[in-house]
């Protein structure tokens, strides 16, 4: 029982990453009709916003300690971050320690800007082009972004831990009357889940309750008619692209303490995020989110050794197997709209 509870928690946690990426992708893919293979790269860039901020905050000056030597026998260079000398060692350390949460503020303008740039400079010329062309150009862009990040940060993962305050685990077991330490869950993963819910809620509220959102939703259903009504739908779509990029980027920022980011993390998520969106159904935001959580939970269950013993290799294929079953049973995924990306 407690094992199952834990896997549900894991599933919700994995699911929130999938759902966040799928949300951004659906905004672009399911609504603007652009197959954006660079979406994974957006996630990755978001994560590297956190790394960049961490690096910026840790910018240091060098003092030489004659009493100690480095590996070559030269006097040891000691680096002291500027923030430590400005705010004192403790406050300085605390600022660096909090670089991931701080990066949220840093990442939003960067990602929105990047999204605008991408839409204005590149994607808008591809709305009328075949999907195949969109795939090629965005895939090319993804490779370019990835290589640029690799050039600056190297290929290895870079540790970006959560603030010390969130490093422990929360004991759920005690709350539910189990033995202590039987169901514990890391604070940061719970924060990730809550954060995902907030972002998802905000995007939905934005689309549902604002005039802007109403126009965009109308544009999703029938772009031409909205255009004929004299509404500048293009401008709104640019904004939507910026929002989608920001959602992906924030998902990346918050993901960094869970797994150290590297330059190809976007590609790792790319295939998966397309599967999630399509299983959810094209053109449906709730579908994408639902599919994200569903696949996250099923993946978690499939990785339990009891299940693997029963069906060897099931943990390797569960996501794809579920995708196949869903798509064969429900022609347009969980909640897909008729006629969207069916040709």
């Amino acid at each position, binding site marked *: 029982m407690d094992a199952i509870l834990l896997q549900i928690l894991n599933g919700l946690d994995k699911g929130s990453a999938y759902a966040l990426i799928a949300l951004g992708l659906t905004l672009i893919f399911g609504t603007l009709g652009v*197959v954006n293979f660079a979406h994974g790269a957006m996630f990755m860039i978001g994560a590297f916003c956190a790394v960049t901020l961490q690096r910026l905050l840790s910018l240091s000056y060098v003092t030489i300690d004659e009493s100690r030597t480095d590996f070559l026998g030269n006097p040891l260079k000691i680096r002291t971050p500027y923030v430590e000398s400005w705010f004192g060692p403790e406050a300085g350390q605390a600022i660096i320690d909090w670089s991931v949460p701080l990066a949220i503020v840093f990442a939003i303008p960067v990602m929105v800007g990047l999204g605008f740039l991408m839409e204005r400079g*590149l994607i808008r*010329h591809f709305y009328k*082009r*075949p*999907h*195949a*062309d969109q*795939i*090629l*150009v965005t*895939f*090319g*862009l*993804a*490779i*370019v972004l*990835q*290589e*640029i990040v690799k*050039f600056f940060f190297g290929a290895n993962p870079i540790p970006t831990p959560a603030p010390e305050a969130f490093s422990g685990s929360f004991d759920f077991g005690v709350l539910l009357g189990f033995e202590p330490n039987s169901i514990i869950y890391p604070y940061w993963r719970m924060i990730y889940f809550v954060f995902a819910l907030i972002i998802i809620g905000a995007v939905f509220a934005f689309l549902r309750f604002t005039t802007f959102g109403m126009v965009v939703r109308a544009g999703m259903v029938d772009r031409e008619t909205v255009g004929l009504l004299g509404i500048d739908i293009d401008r709104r779509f640019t904004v939507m692209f910026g929002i989608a990029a920001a959602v992906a980027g924030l998902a990346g920022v918050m993901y960094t303490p869970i797994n150290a980011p590297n330059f190809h993390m976007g590609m790792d998520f790319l*295939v998966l995020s*397309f*599967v999630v969106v*399509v*299983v959810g159904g*094209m053109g449906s935001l709730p579908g994408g989110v639902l599919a994200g959580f569903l696949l996250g939970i099923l993946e978690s269950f499939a990785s339990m050794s009891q299940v693997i013993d029963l069906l*060897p*290799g099931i943990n*390797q*294929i569960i996501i*794809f*197997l579920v*995708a*196949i079953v869903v*798509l*064969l049973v429900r*022609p*347009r*995924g969980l909640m*897909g709209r008729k006629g969207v*990306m*069916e*040709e």
Partner: protein
Amino acid sequence: MFGLNRRDTRFLLIVIALTLLTPFILQPFPEGSALAQFNAGYPDLMQRIAIFGIFAIGFNILFGLTGYLSFGHAAFLGVGSYAVVWMYKLLDYNVLPGLVLAIVTSGLFALAIGYLSLRRSGIYFSILTLAFAQMSFNLAYSVLTPITNGETGLQVYTSDPQILLGENEPNVPHLFGLAMNESYKLELGGWVFTFNVGYYFTAVIAILAFYLSLRIFRSPFGMMLRAVKSNQTRLHYTGVNPRPYTLAAFVISGMYAGLAGGLLAAMDPLAGAERMQWTESGAVVIMTILGGAGTLMGPVLGAGFIKYLEKIFSKINENILEGWFAFLPEGMREVVVWVLSRFTGEGWALTLGLMFMLVVIFLPGGLMEGGRRIAALFRRRPETGKDDSAPGGAPAE
């Protein structure tokens, strides 16, 4: 000739000539010159270009004609390779039984996957094929290790049965004793040209594959597939069920992929699981679009372009760049070498990504479009499409 009209015959003859003369065409620079780095006329690359050309030609039959975008064709490539290596292990190093088995098994595999996937269209179809291929890859890499040898790749061991292995048989892949890795080197002045048995074997198969695809493009069957692409609903109204046609196209292109995979193993007797990964499926999609989807020659060009870039650019390291720019003054040389080395050697992927973007932005319709524009410049008269597929040569969706 060959059941083709005059224009197509001429086209086919040009393709045959180009294919057979590849060892010359890809070796334009004399050995030892600074530009020899750009020579690509060595067996492995020539074989690979021909093989991926076959893969892309087959993919184009499905995608270019019907518009169904499969993201799982790498699975057939892998199946083909495994079939050939298993035939090595069980029978002997003769490539023929393996290639036949590769085509048959990949055809059956494609039939099963196609039957299920073609119940859906558009992106739903793409994701279904992707899911099947990724499942195949993940299983081949892990739990199916007894059959596929997992991470290492399937290869022949001396302890394998090889029941047909004769006394003096070469223990490398061969066709009735003619070893695939045999080469004849022709030295002409400063140039060295390599004629490799394996390359000519694949080249002949590639020509046959190309001819078959030409016939399909021109046949009523091909017309039917184009009809599927332009308007399925209308097809339904006229009382035609398009499913058997698309399924046939899917299976044919799956068999092409299996043949290509088999040939990979025929040239180099190892079958790696990575051949089934989505990146490989993506690669064939990109080759086709890059070259020009729906055109006959485009996919082959795309395949050659990508393989050339990958293999040649990744080998240009800083040392070589230093050599090229040795004439520049020191400071300037460092700058030039530093900048260029971002795009070559370990930076080859960056060049690839940039090329994708540039081609698709400036040449909608792929490399074929570029060729057409250049040809138009020289001819100064309306281009009639010397090497195009004729009707419906527009970029496919």
